[in-house]
């Protein structure tokens, strides 16, 4: 009967890689979501009002708010929209995920527009922008874990 050598060490390495990848992917995912969410909040808080907008005659209070130009991020009125953006870690046993969540219904109206109001997309453009950096970080992390596992005999960090 022949014995295969090194199975234990290989199993230990794979276990090491699996745990490391999950932990580091979770960190990258969460950091990317935090960064993207932060950019969204900055965009809203620094967005200027539309210079071509005319406040309706007789408008008082909130109705005197001048919205941002369509096509870009909305600007701040009460500060509620930007204050309600939060990042949530949605990692489970079988997946790594993070979500950027807006706690107000009108965030989706701003993002996609409505039948009578133009869209002011603010989350998706930043999300798309974050894609290449996120993929790069993931690739680098996988390479780094593979290198560490290859260097180690048992899979443990040296």
């Amino acid at each position, binding site marked *: 009967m022949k014995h295969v050598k090194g199975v234990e060490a290989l199993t230990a390495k794979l276990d090491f890689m699996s745990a490391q990848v999950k932990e580091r992917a979770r960190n990258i995912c969460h950091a990317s979501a935090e960064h993207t969410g932060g950019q969204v909040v900055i965009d809203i808080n620094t967005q200027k009002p539309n210079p071509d907008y005319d406040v309706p005659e007789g408008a008082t209070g909130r109705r005197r708010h001048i919205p941002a130009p369509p096509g870009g991020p909305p600007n701040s009125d009460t500060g509620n929209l930007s204050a309600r953006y939060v990042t949530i870690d949605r990692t489970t046993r079988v997946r790594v995920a993070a979500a950027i969540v807006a706690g107000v219904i009108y965030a989706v109206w701003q993002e*996609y*527009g409505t039948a009578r109001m133009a869209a002011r997309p603010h989350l998706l453009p930043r999300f*798309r922008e974050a894609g290449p950096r996120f993929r790069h970080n993931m690739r680098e992390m996988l390479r780094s874990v593979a290198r560490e596992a290859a260097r180690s005999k048992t899979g443990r960090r040296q």
Partner: protein
Amino acid sequence: MSYPIPDLQRAVIARLRAYAPLTAVVAQRIYDTAPADAAYPFVTINSISATERDTDTSDGLRVALAVSVFAQGVDARAKVQRHAAHVIDALHRNAAALTVTGHAVVMCSYQSSLVFRTPDDGGGAHCVVNFLILTEQAELANGY
């Protein structure tokens, strides 16, 4: 490379306006930007974003196209999803139906959709349908 997006948008609108099951419910109310008094239900182009997908031998674009469908009434969400299904049927895997001068539409594929309520005109619903379109320049003028 000539920029195919305006032509592509025209082709999408033309395709939707020619798709009988959709026009049976929205008539010709398929717009680039809807007029302020557009009657319900209607369809608009929501957003188009393009990224470069050139190869060594051809110029190409990866286009994310979002189509919006609006409806109104107590069952607005159900209506809007039925109309959105027609939009999907008209475009999904139907690249051949999109004619863009100087470019080949290689792929038009439904990706995802999102339905939500809107506060317009006493309550309505909005469905955003996302498509992925790949285009390739039909013939490069000077090699590449």
